[in-house]
């Protein structure tokens, strides 16, 4: 069963525009959710986690238990934000990832 859903495979915005990458999850317990990012020619790496309630590179993500969502947002996208973004759910001992969204920020 799909536990993490990222409905958009591709997302394209212009520089300076707001961006939102959607993530919905399915989990009956208290979820631990993460966003990972893979820039061109780099390793997949952690961007942020919901328990930290932090802002990394201008990105934030709020856990909405009612909507079972963990959307990633940034008010003003930059060209260097272009990358592949994965939403992930920690479930017991394993980490499950969504299909990913490729974000392209155009100049």
């Amino acid at each position: 069963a799909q536990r993490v859903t990222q409905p958009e495979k591709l997302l394209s915005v212009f520089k300076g525009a707001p961006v939102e990458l959607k993530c919905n999850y399915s989990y009956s317990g208290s979820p631990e959710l993460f966003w990972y990012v893979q820039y061109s020619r780099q390793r997949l790496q952690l961007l942020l986690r919901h328990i930290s309630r932090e802002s990394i590179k201008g990105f934030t993500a709020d856990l909405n238990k009612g909507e079972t969502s963990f959307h990633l947002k940034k008010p003003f996208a930059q060209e260097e934000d272009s990358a592949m973004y994965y939403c992930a759910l920690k479930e017991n001992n394993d980490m499950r990832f969504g299909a990913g969204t490729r974000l392209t920020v155009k100049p």
Partner: protein
Amino acid sequence: SQTIHQWPATLVQPVGSPLSLECTVEGTSNPNLYWYRQAAGRGLQLLFYSVGIGQISSEVPQNLSASRPQDRQFILSSKKLLLSDSGFYLCAYETSGNTIYFGEGSWLTVV
């Protein structure tokens, strides 16, 4: 400092041949270890994870197997490769704190 290394980086193998991808972690002990396959349009598919030596959990029934002969070594294997095994394989580890750290990946092409 903690590091993760997997090899080989690229591999071209004929159908029916065996496979061995290796992954080692340094700078930490008793990590959770993972093998993922990254495929276009399908994201990251969890293949195997291990919480300790000799303890392997398989998520997807398939032509692959995994072993953990030592605390910081994780091996992905196949006895006979299929064309459908082609893909990009990622090893990863997790320590306390729930952050996953990924290796650089291995491109496997089965011909």
